[in-house]
C-alpha cells in the first residue's frame, strides 16, 4: 500500500467523555459507563427513545467525527462492533420466550442486527457509498481501518468514516466475568464509541497520519510479543515515543516484553471492552497533539510517533501505528 492516509476527524464517547480533556474516569469498582452526551443535541428525542445505547453513542461519535473533519458526508461508512446491539437481541429473545413466539413486535429484532449502526449512520448522511460492518472480537475496529485503507488505496473514494462501538449490558458483564475477561484484579469493564474520518487528503485540520494497521492471528499461539513486533518493525521500536497497550491490568504478563519501553495501558481510561482500540486511536491522536492524561510523568514531553498494541488470548494481536502530520 503506497498512498498516505490521514486522520482528519475524530469523535469519541467514552467513560472519560469526548476526550476534550483527559481526566481519569470517575472511580468505579468493576464497571465504567460512558459519559452520555446530551442526545437531544444530535437527534430528535423520539428517535432516541427507539435506539439502544450503543446505537446512540455511535451516532453521536460519528457526527462529532464528521463535524471535526468539516464534512457532511463521506464516501463510505465502516463500523466494527464485537457484540452489536446486544440489548435488542436480549429484548427480542426474552419477549419470544415470554410470549411463546406469539404476537411479537419486530422493532427490537430489526435493531438487533449488527449492521444497524452503519446502516443508520449511512442513512443519516444520505451516503450511498460503501457500507460495511465487522463483528470480530478485538479485531472489529482494525478491520474497519484496514478496509478504508484499501478503499483509498484502490482509488474508490477519498474519505471514509470508520469506527467501533460496544455496550456492556448487565448480561454481557455477567457472561464476560464468568469467562474471566473481567475481574477484581483487572481494570474495570468499559464501553464506548470511537469514530474517525480517514482520508487520502492532507488538509489543515488533519490530526495525524495513519502509518500501519495489522491484524495477526496465530492458530498455534503467538510467540513472545517483542519477537512478533520485531517482525513487523525490523528496525525496532525505538522510533515510538509512546506505546499504548491493551493490557487489562497494570501488570499484564503479555506486555512484559515491553517493560523498558514507554508504555501506557489505554484500558485504564476506557475500561476493558473488546473494541477499546477505537478509543486508543483517539487517545493517541491527543498525545500526538500535545495533550496528556493527569499522570503526565509517564509520557515523553514530545510525542511524534505512537504504536497501539492490543491482544486477545494467546492467538490474536492487533497493531496500529500513527505519527504527527
Amino acid at each position, binding site marked *: *500500500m503506497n498512498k498516505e492516509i490521514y486522520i482528519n476527524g475524530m469523535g469519541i464517547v467514552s467513560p472519560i467523555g469526548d476526550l476534550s480533556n483527559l481526566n481519569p474516569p470517575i472511580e468505579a469498582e468493576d464497571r465504567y459507563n460512558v459519559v452520555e452526551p446530551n442526545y437531544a443535541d444530535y437527534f430528535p428525542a423520539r428517535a432516541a427513545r427507539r435506539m439502544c445505547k450503543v446505537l446512540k453513542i455511535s451516532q453521536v461519535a460519528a457526527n462529532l467525527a464528521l463535524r471535526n473533519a468539516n464534512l457532511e458526508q463521506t464516501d*463510505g*461508512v465502516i463500523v466494527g462492533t*464485537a*457484540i*452489536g446491539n446486544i440489548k435488542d*437481541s436480549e429484548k*427480542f*429473545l*426474552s419477549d*419470544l*420466550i415470554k410470549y*411463546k*413466539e*406469539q404476537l*411479537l*413486535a*419486530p422493532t427490537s*429484532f*430489526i435493531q*438487533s*442486527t*449488527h*449492521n*444497524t449502526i*452503519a*446502516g*443508520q449512520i*449511512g*442513512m443519516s448522511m*444520505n*451516503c*450511498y*457509498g*460503501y*457500507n*460495511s*460492518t*465487522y*463483528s*470480530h*472480537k478485538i*479485531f472489529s475496529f482494525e*478491520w474497519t481501518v*484496514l*478496509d478504508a485503507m*484499501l478503499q483509498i*488505496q*484502490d482509488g474508490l473514494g477519498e474519505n471514509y468514516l470508520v469506527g467501533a462501538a460496544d455496550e456492556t449490558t448487565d448480561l454481557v458483564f*455477567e*457472561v464476560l466475568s*464468568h*469467562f474471566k475477561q473481567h475481574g477484581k484484579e483487572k481494570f474495570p469493564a468499559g464501553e464506548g464509541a470511537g469514530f474517525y474520518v480517514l482520508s487520502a487528503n492532507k488538509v489543515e485540520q488533519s490530526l495525524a497520519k495513519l502509518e500501519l494497521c495489522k*491484524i*495477526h*492471528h*496465530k*492458530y*498455534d499461539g503467538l510467540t513472545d510479543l517483542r519477537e512478533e513486533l520485531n517482525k513487523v518493525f525490523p528496525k525496532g521500536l525505538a522510533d515510538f515515543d509512546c506505546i499504548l497497550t491493551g493490557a487489562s491490568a497494570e501488570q499484564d504478563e503479555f506486555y512484559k516484553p515491553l517493560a523498558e519501553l514507554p508504555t501506557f495501558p489505554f484500558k485504564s481510561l476506557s475500561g476493558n471492552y473488546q473494541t477499546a482500540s477505537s478509543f486508543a486511536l483517539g487517545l493517541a491522536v491527543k498525545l500526538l497533539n500535545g495533550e496528556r492524561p493527569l499522570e503526565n510523568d509517564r509520557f515523553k514531553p514530545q510525542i511524534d510517533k505512537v504504536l497501539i498494541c492490543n491482544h486477545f488470548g494467546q492467538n490474536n494481536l492487533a497493531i496500529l501505528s500513527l505519527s504527527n502530520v
Partner: protein
Amino acid sequence: MSKSVHVSGIGIISSLGSTKEEHQSAFIAEKSGVGQISILPTAYKDSLLAGEIKKSTDDLKELCGLSLDSIHSRTSLLALFAAQKAAKNAGFDSFETLSDPMALLCATSVGGMDLSELHFEAYKNGDEAKIDFFRTHDCGDCTETIAKYLKISGMIGTISTACSSSANAIMMGARLIKNGLVNRALVGGSDALSIFTLNGFNALKILDHELCRPFDETRAGLNLGEGAAFLMLESEESLGSKKSLGKVVGYANTEDAFHQTASSPEGKGAGLAMETALKIAGLKPADIDYINAHGTATRINDESEGMAIKRIFGSTLPPFSSTKAFTGHTLGAAGALEAVFSLLSIESNQAPINLNFKQQMEDLKVSPLTEKLQNAPINHVLSNSFGFGGNCSSLIFSA
C-alpha cells in the same frame, strides 16, 4: 490492482445437500430443499416452511470430526464443514504448513444465536451452568473455530451486514489478494436457522406460509433457509498449475440509504452496486451471461431489484433467476451459496431456473429463467446480495 483472483476450491452445505453434485442434481430435477421444519424446536414447526438441513447438531459434529460433547453452535459447525470442504477441494487438508500468512473471512448474521436461545431461559431462571453455551454467541466464533481446526494463521475477520454478509466477505478476500496483502483467502459465510430469526422475520410479516415465488406477481414473502458456503481464493502465483474454477472480477458494495428494512422502490443502491461491479470488472451489461438475483420473494425486494436490473441491462437483459425457492433465504450465507451457484453455472454452462414462477410482476413485465438454460456458453455471471440496513452488494465471476 492487476492481480487476478482465482477460485480454487468450493465447499457448500444447504437443504439441497452437502456436495456441489447434490446441488446441481437438485437444480436439474427442479427439486426444492424447502419443506416442513423437523429439527428447529419452534412453535411454527407445522405452520411455516424452511430450507432446513436434515442433520442434527450431533450429526454435524461427526461430519466435522469433532467430539459430541464439544460446545459448538450450529452456525459454526456448518461454517467449519463448508470451509473444510473448500480447503480440501483446493488441495489443502489444513493450512499448517503454509509459510506466508493468509486471510480468513467468515460472514454471519446470527452467529451462535441457535445455541444461546436454547439455554437463555434456563440461565435466566438460575441455572448458571448454562452460561457456557453463550461462549459461542458472538459472530467471531465461527471464524475462530475454522482457524483453529484448519490451522490458519494470518488475518482473520468476520463480517455481519445482514443478508449481504458473505458477498462482502468474498469481496474483501478478493481485495486483499488484489492489493498483494495475501496470496490466499478462505472466504464465505454461514447462518443456521434459529427461533430468533424465524420469529423476527415472522414479526416483520415477510414470511410466506407457502413455497416462496421470487419475481412472481403473487409473491407473498420469503422462506428462510440455513447453510454455509466457502470459496478458496488464490492469486495467480499461488494457484500455480491447479485448476481455476473461475475468477472474481467485479465487486461493489453500496448503501441504499432509504430505510432500515425496506429497499427503495427504484432500487437505487442495488443499481449502483451492479453498475460499479461492472465497471470494476471492465465489462458491459451485454457481457453478462446470467444473473443470480437476490430475489427473496418479498414484495419490496423483488420490485426494487427487478427495477434496478431492468434499468441497468435494458435491452440486453440476460437470463436471470433467484435460487431462493430452492434453498430458502440463508441470510448471511446466501451470498456465498449463490457465489458457488454462479461458479457452477460457469463450469457446467447451465443455470438454475427460477422455481415457482408463473406470473410476471405487473410493474416489471419481465420473466426470470423458467426453462433450463443448457449448453449456453456462460462466461460472466453477476450475483446480487442485498440486506437489511440498505446493504447492497454485487459480485461478478468470470470463466
